[in-house]
């Protein structure tokens, strides 16, 4: 399984830190080219590699850590999304979903990525907390996962666990997605899961 982070802002960098700390290889790209990320990659080598957007999109699992509106640009950068898992780590920062036709933001993203299995996670913590060690107070920080494809949810939950978090799968977007929307009750919650 190969992973790529698209976006090198606060969230993209935070995720890169977690991959590096966990010793899991990941490539990272933005629309400005790998030179703009070389400092970060140097600091987090060898796990994190700065690459061109096109190369990053070859990964099996592509993590969108860009501002919400930018997902449409990324969506156009590859001929087919068939077979890929896309992690939606973005937030649609508007109180109303009307501009998305009433869809949850992950469903809206999925529409522009035909063939991809979209899973929402990594969107729900402030970047500084996302970057910090998820092992805390004898437990692990919770990371909620939701998506309309059960197998992709499980695979992403495994990744989330490998990065040190306690994944809690909320099921389909219609079940858990609305709870993870911007302003939703499970967003910005610093929860530590104790026990097994």
């Amino acid at each position: 399984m190969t992973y790529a982070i698209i976006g090198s802002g606060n969230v993209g960098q935070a995720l890169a830190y977690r991959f590096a700390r966990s010793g899991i290889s990941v490539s990272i790209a933005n629309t400005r080219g790998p030179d703009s990320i070389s400092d970060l990659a140097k600091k987090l080598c060898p796990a994190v590699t700065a690459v061109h957007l096109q190369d990053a999109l070859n990964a099996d699992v592509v993590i969108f850590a860009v501002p919400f509106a930018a997902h449409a640009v990324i969506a156009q950068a590859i001929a087919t999304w068939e077979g890929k898992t896309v992690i939606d780590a973005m937030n649609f920062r508007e109180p109303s979903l009307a501009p998305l036709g009433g869809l949850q933001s992950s469903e809206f993203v999925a529409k522009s990525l035909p063939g991809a299995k979209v899973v929402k996670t990594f969107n729900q913590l402030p970047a500084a907390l996302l970057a910090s060690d998820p092992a805390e107070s004898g437990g692990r920080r919770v990371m909620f996962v939701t998506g309309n494809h059960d197998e992709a949810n499980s695979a992403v939950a495994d990744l989330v666990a490998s990065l040190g978090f306690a994944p809690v799968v909320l099921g389909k977007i219609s079940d858990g997605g609305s709870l993870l929307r911007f302003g939703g009750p499970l967003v910005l919650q610093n929860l530590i899961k104790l026990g097994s």
Partner: protein
Amino acid sequence: MTYSIIGSGNVGTALARQFARSGITVGIANTRGPDSIAPLAKELGAKVVPQTLQDALKADVVILAVPFRAHTTVASALESWSGKVVVDAMNTYGVSPEELKGQASTDVVAAAFPGAKIVKTLNQLPAKLLAQDPSVNGGRRVMFVSSNDANAEALMATLVADLGFAPIQLGKVNVGGMLIGMGGSLILQNLIKQA
């Protein structure tokens, strides 16, 4: 606001313990009568008051901590539930989806208590964990709250907070209630909300 717990099994006892610890007065009743709860009340002090079922049902907030099927017996013990908040702290162990007719269990309960505002909470932890001090490592144990009535949900979130937990309101029963129902992903999770 007056509170009562119906049921003196593991969950009812755990809840009584939290009320006592938080210094909030609560009535407690079962179908066997107050004498059967006297030893517990003696242990927990003056805040926990053994009552007859009829007296307990006079409370503003009635917490159902009985086996799921027993809720109908409680429901028929009072003429009108209008204006009351009923907390569904039950779980549907051993109850088939067919028996629930595919509905969320809290919706089944709601149908038995016409006029009441039903809130699902206090159901989601094993009784032993429910009884423990919710203050852990500088944080507080999470208690999810779900209801189709936003006001009642907020009210019970406040009670849950007064009992020392960190309430998280999940909203309507068809989403949040399912997640804290049997087999849901937010049930039996020992989560500590950090300050």
